[in-house]
């Protein structure tokens, strides 16, 4: 079976992002960009399915401007077989991403689509679920275990109360949580090989999708600053402060 993996180019998770002085957007000048950590886990899961003989082909898809080809190449270096970029002018919202992914799903007819649960820039946590609704597919979100079994996939999900397991008819959507697997590092030979792998570029029009944004970013601002605290010298002082100053115990 074919597995489609959606990878997003985002600011590296180590970067502390700040608002621009005029509050129009965040300042991403000269910051390190990476593959979204949850997408890296998605790629790893797909590659493991291939190594286990369950998947036959892994296709990595990213939506964005040309720069996102870098993240597709990363996915190819991690073991994906070929890549697809859907070219947009800059970032698009989750609903548009979901529509474009649906277009790719219709072309490629994968049995499994694996996405991250959340992009660490927008913190949306929407795209996989939206794709599920648009494509009429079942979804296993926040997955910590994925087992393909015939025409079904069993997904263990990380939910607020603990773990929940659901069984889904294929084709289905999976979104990854952090504990699903630990992604491998790309080896140098694999990085070289990835440069030669096939990478097709589509426009939204090729997929019959009109890019229409519903949301406007009015402004961004830093969160409320916390007042600087103090260091206490001892447990006694800590207990005293909590009782008599903060009055929380």
């Amino acid at each position, binding site marked *: 079976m074919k597995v489609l993996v959606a990878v997003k180019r985002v600011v590296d998770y180590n970067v502390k992002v700040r608002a621009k002085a005029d509050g129009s957007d965040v300042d991403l000048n000269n910051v390190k960009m990476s593959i979204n950590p949850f997408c890296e886990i998605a790629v790893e899961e797909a590659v493991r399915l291939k190594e286990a003989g369950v998947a036959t082909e892994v296709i990595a898809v990213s939506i964005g401007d040309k720069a996102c080809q870098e993240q597709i190449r990363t996915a190819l270096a991690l073991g994906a077989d070929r890549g697809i970029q859907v070219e947009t002018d800059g970032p698009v919202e989750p609903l548009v991403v979901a529509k474009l992914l649906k277009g790719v799903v219709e072309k490629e007819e994968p049995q499994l689509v694996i996405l991250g649960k959340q992009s660490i820039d927008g913190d949306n946590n929407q795209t996989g679920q939206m794709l599920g609704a648009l494509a009429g597919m079942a979804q296993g979100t926040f997955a910590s275990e994925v087992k393909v079994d015939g025409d079904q996939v069993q997904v263990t999900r990380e939910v607020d109360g603990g773990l929940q397991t659901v069984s889904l008819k294929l084709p289905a959507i999976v979104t990854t949580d952090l504990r699903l697997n630990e992604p491998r590092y790309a080896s140098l030979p694999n990085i070289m090989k990835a440069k030669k792998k096939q990478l097709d570029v589509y426009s939204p029009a090729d997929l019959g999708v009109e890019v229409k944004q519903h949301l406007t970013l009015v402004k961004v601002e830093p969160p409320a600053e916390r007042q600087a605290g103090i260091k206490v010298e001892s447990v006694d002082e800590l207990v005293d402060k*909590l009782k008599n100053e903060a009055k929380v115990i």
Partner: protein
Amino acid sequence: MGTLVVAEHDNATLNPATLNAVAAAQALGADIDILVAGNGCAAVGEAAAKVPGVGKVLVADNAAYDHALAENTSLLVAELAAGYDNVVAAATTSGKNVMPRVAALLDVAQISDIISVEAADTFKRPIYAGNVIATVQTADAKKVITVRATAFDPVAAEGGSAAVEAVDAVHDAGVSSFVGEELAQSDRPELTAAPVVISGGRGMQNGDNFKLLDGIADKLGAAIGASRAAVDAGFVPNDMQVGQTGKIVAPELYIAVGISGAIQHLAGMKDSKVIVAINKDEDAPIFQVADYGLVADLFEALPELEGKL
């Protein structure tokens, strides 16, 4: 028209996060109805009817809605949404699972995890792990919204007497089924609702050492949380993770023990009223957000703290 709040529950009790979602719905200004979709969930419908300020409670009681399977529940909510301007749910794992499907079925954007309502079409929400707060405006007539519970004080659970109406629509997409669950058993308060939270990190070294937090938690009526590193290392289960990609907490008192203070952890707790950090590294970033920092070895400080409370 008005606002439909999708209740979260386990067929027996109404999850308190629903009361925070109702509070956000009030900020939207329109009339409020609550939807209880489940299987054998009449008691939840009655509980929801007692929430003050609610017009009516819609109860969709059918096996198809058991365990809030997203494929089925989203079809129901999208159908009912025809009669509302806004559809709102708490940003719990269940709300996050169902609501984006609803939004896609309605062909509207979802506004995730709002922390304030600025106007009927304009909201604030944290992005980049809470490093910045975005104000977003939607062009959609119908709004699908999830609510960060800690940002809205819950409405009262009792005092109202809304009408309860049965909804007969049955949507079974037939593509998913519930297999089982392993829910954490604990006598402690729920992490996201507890007035005091004490969390352990990688510095705890192993799961056994988390017992050092028990006595303190008992004395303070606290819930116990953890950093991702502690969860990843297998010290404690995943439902204890606090942070950007775990649970968001904002208790009166948060005590971080052996936690360095990575931005992804801070994203989940920095709105706590009072923060205490116990860490042996005086340069640990957690001290930058702590009201009271204690530079100490946790293996000495915790037993002493327990003794002195």
